[in-house]
């Protein structure tokens, strides 16, 4: 069993294998693990499909190479195979752009809990001015 943490998802998936440092999962476990599944037109999430490049072998009879797919679509991966935890991150436009470019002033939305576990989204406060202040105990 392996734990995959990706965007707002954190799921446990059975049947993982590691081959040459790449994570392989059973194809049927993909939608719950990373939100993508294999269709005739490519690897898809909702209406978005990533065509499989010619000569690419993302899957075989034994499973799907999640690490190779992540590299192709630009997801960053970090793994602790021994403890069975893998993280994927979509590079944010602002944080990931090495040149520091940003194209939009639209504030990215997020949803987080308060101390009592109640969820708040930035978009809940649309119509009000918001000073978004980050802090930490360190």
């Amino acid at each position, binding site marked *: 069993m392996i734990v995959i943490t990706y965007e707002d998802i*954190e799921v446990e998936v059975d049947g993982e294998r590691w081959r040459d440092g790449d994570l392989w999962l059973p194809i049927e476990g993909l939608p719950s693990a990373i939100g993508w599944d294999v269709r005739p037109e490519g690897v898809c999430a909702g209406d978005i499909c990533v065509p499989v490049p010619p000569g690419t072998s993302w899957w075989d009879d034994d499973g799907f190479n999640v690490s190779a797919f992540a590299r192709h679509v630009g997801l960053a991966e970090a793994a*602790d195979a021994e403890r069975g935890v893998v993280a994927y*991150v979509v590079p*944010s436009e602002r944080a990931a752009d*090495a040149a520091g470019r940003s194209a939009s002033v639209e504030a990215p939305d*997020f949803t987080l809990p308060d101390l009592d576990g109640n969820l708040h989204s930035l978009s809940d406060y649309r119509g009000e001015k918001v*000073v978004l*202040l980050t802090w930490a*105990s360190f």
Partner: protein
Amino acid sequence: MLAVAQDAGGAETTRPWIRPTNMEEQYPPAILDLMGWSADAWRGAGPPQYPCLIDQRHEVSRLYGMVNVPTAVWIDEEGRIVRPPEPAGVNEAFKAVDLATFSMPADAVESGSRHRNRYFAAVGDWARHGPDSPAALPADEVLRRMGRRARWGDPARAAAEFRLAEALYRRKDPDAAQVHFTEAARLWPENWAYQRQSRQLADPATVGELDAGPGFWRSLEQRGPGAFYPPVDLPETV
């Protein structure tokens, strides 16, 4: 106001800081001096009237390209950023602290206080006047400032390592987590929050405590002036 704790320690470590029951025990005197804290004012203050959210994965920082705390972004009624991420009412006056006595020279306290008051005045001006406030920036200036900072490292891989570390830490495996917290800090050197979080959680005795040990001061010295809290460009008229 939305306050977001960027803290892998979660509610357990942040709760005592949201409404400390004894400020004088919890904060070093030098920090209290810089904050302009007074016992009378504290007794008269209520608990926060705004949401205090917990972000164990530092996702907000990743989304907005923030690299330290406290950092603030101003967002208007339409969801547009009108001031980009910048140090929120803090400057580098704290560097003048006497590390032997942990006391703060009067001129540093004065500098910190002046800076903080000016920032608060700017927030108030924007709250009252909205886009007519000189502190609210047009979109092209926001974009220019967001692109101005030199960046290096690999923020996306760093964020993946941090996310992995946080998941391991939450699963009560702090030793394994530390490997990846450290790697996250290495991959994105300008992210002070990764670095400080990593140091804080490395020792169970310092979890939830201010990162103010030798490692912190060594990093400050190595990076030079303006790297920790870059100067904030506020209009003189506010």
